[in-house]
């Protein structure tokens, strides 16, 4: 794990996946450091996948206590009440994750993520956050971008039976295998702030409705100074009113954001386990790609809705806005 070559133990354990992405990619994985915030169902799935894959280390941040709703979708939390008492969500998940792969260093960091400085974030190669307000997403994203080394940044959110992933790899170079050798590819990603600033009207006509719906909910929670997901059916009229205002502001036809979709998201603040598995699986794969520099990474939003089983990738970026 610390040397250049994979140990015999690693080669045996990771045999089946080395046959997929090669020993070189596996070595890079074993040297990577991931930071994760917000231990809900989707993040639990994501952590399972990257720990099984054999990353170098995983640091969990979530000082919340265990709640009833957490038990329903987070399979890392033991059902035994006596075990849970006195421990935070991160601490409980940490214990479970260590069992999945003793070769990965899983640890907990206490404190408010937003108040941690640059030296802290500099320790990581990948930062993944969930259950964050609009302000926090922008803040953490900027902290990552200000570092001298390139840190991959992801946000993930699941509500009702749908989910959204956002990816920011900044300036990303990777080699792509073609039929006649390899080609060097470069992708330029916008920050979260830049992406959501792209005028709605300039997006492609059939862009996923979930993109807009999520932005409306995000803005509502921010305007009302709510914690993420602190929203219920009573808020629906106000949410619909906000949607109208935003559509007018952006000169977007209201049909792009169906009321029924907003209603689902408002009422479905909780997560749905199988959807968490799909989104967590997809996110796991994206992070593995970014660390190993193998495969085309997702750019830059992914949406999934269980009601029709469709997964959509949307490239929401404006070349003119990028420096």
């Amino acid at each position, binding site marked *: 794990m610390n040397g250049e070559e994979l140990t015999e133990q690693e080669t*045996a*354990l*990771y*045999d*089946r*996946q080395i*046959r*997929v*992405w090669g020993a070189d990619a596996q070595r890079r994985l074993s040297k990577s450091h991931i930071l994760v915030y917000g231990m809900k169902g989707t993040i639990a*799935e994501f952590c*399972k*996948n990257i720990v*099984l*894959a*054999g990353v170098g280390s995983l640091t969990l941040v979530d000082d919340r206590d265990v709640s*009833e*709703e957490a*038990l*329903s*979708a987070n*399979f890392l939390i*033991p*059902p035994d*009440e006596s075990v849970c008492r006195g421990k935070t969500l991160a601490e409980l998940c940490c214990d479970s994750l260590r*069992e*999945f*792969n*003793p070769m990965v260093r899983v640890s907990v960091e206490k404190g408010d993520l937003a108040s941690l400085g640059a030296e802290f974030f500099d320790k990581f190669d990948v930062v993944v956050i969930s259950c964050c307000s609009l302000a926090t997403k922008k803040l953490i994203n900027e902290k990552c971008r200000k570092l001298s080394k390139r840190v991959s940044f992801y946000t993930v959110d699941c509500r*009702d*039976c749908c989910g959204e992933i956002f990816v920011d790899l900044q300036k990303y170079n990777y080699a792509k295998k073609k039929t006649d050798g390899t080609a060097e590819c470069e992708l330029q990603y916008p920050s979260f702030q830049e992406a959501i600033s792209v005028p709605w009207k300039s997006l492609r006509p059939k862009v996923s409705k979930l993109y807009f719906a999520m932005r409306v909910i995000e803005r509502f929670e921010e305007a009302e100074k709510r914690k993420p997901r602190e929203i219920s059916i009573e808020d629906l009229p106000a949410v619909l009113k906000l949607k109208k205002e935003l559509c007018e502001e952006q000169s977007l036809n209201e049909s792009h954001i169906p009321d*029924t979709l907003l209603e689902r998201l408002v*009422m*479905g603040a*909780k*997560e*749905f*386990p*199988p*959807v*968490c*598995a*799909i989104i*967590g*699986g*997809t996110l*796991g*794969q994206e992070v*593995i790609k970014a660390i190993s520099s193998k*495969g*085309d*990474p*997702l750019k830059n939003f*992914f949406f999934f809705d*269980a*009601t*029709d*089983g*469709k*997964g959509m*990738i949307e490239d929401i970026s404006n070349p003119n806005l990028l420096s």
Partner: protein
Amino acid sequence: MAESTVHQSRSRDLDKLLLRPGNLVAPTFEPGAQLRDDLQEYARILVVGAGGLGCELLKDLALSGFKNLEVIDMDRIEVTNLNRQFLFRLEDVGKPKAEVAARRVMERVSEYDSDDKPIEETVKPMVDGGTEGFKGHARVIIPGSTPCFECTIWLFPPQVKFPLCTLAETPRTAAHCIEYAHLIKWDEVHSGKTFDPDDPEHMKWVYTEAVKRAELFGIQGVTYSLTQGVVKNIIPAIASTNAIVSAACTLETLKLVSGCSKTLSNYLTYNGVEGLHIKVTEFVKDKDCLVCGPGVLLELDTSVTLQKFIDMLEEHPKLLLSKASVRHQATNLYMQAPQVLEEMTRSNLNLPLFELMGKVPRDIVHVTGTTSRDGKKASCLRKLCLVFKGADAVTDQDMAVGA
């Protein structure tokens, strides 16, 4: 925290789907607490396999509220399983997969009701999933409406089989050298001794021989890892693909059992090799399907003998089947070969087919034989639906059927 409160809160997500009406629900959907409780108490799910997909499925199904899960697996746990089959630990290596998986799931889920009474269903939907590396699929089979397994069997890629002459005389690839050592040289040197792919000594022997052969023919690429892969037909596997496909299967299971939403219609493919691609295709039933198709309809007189029937198949424009063997339900009415079975069934040829089939007015038979296509002879299996003209409505079951 009272037990009932925990249960109530735990199913809060599911309640959103099961307690309210909706636009995408099935016609038989009846929202209510009864449905949710029935789902948990009565629905019995059989999970075939406790491996990569099985572990994920058990977790997803248990979290989705299913309480009666049964899992089958004939294998034992190996170290190479641990990178994705997360219900297993290093100390479990060697133990039976199904037992360990069931125990781990039970440790995480609360009480199990042993007094389950399954509701009789004549239609048993099946959800099927598969993965390989970055690719996978999930699909729903509802007998009678979606294509059956047989209808879509053409979707499976052809099995990789090397011609014997290539292995014996003209190898070109590393895999050829390995299969030569495995399939030909092993028997030459160890006649009588069965090759055991799980025995490292056997595998090492095959590897050494494969290397020798490769050197002889100037072929590169024989490694121990490749040898294992070719001999054991190892499918590369990672956790995240399994997570995605199992979850899709669980979602469909939940929808099928509860009717709370439209089901996947009907085949989902996932491809994460380059970027990310998910597509849902609506395959249709194959009308000529041997299993779920209606079969070629033939009207017969009750006096027609089995011999006459076999002769008719040769002339029938849709079949043109010669040297037919006939099978009805679990019985071979007549077999052209091998000799011993031909002799045993020969006496049926002079009997009326109607009587041989238990005097039912209509039933299915399967026939095998040879047909001519583009001048080439090929063996084929066909499904026939036989209708007997002038048969009585009351069937006479008192009939001795020939061997």
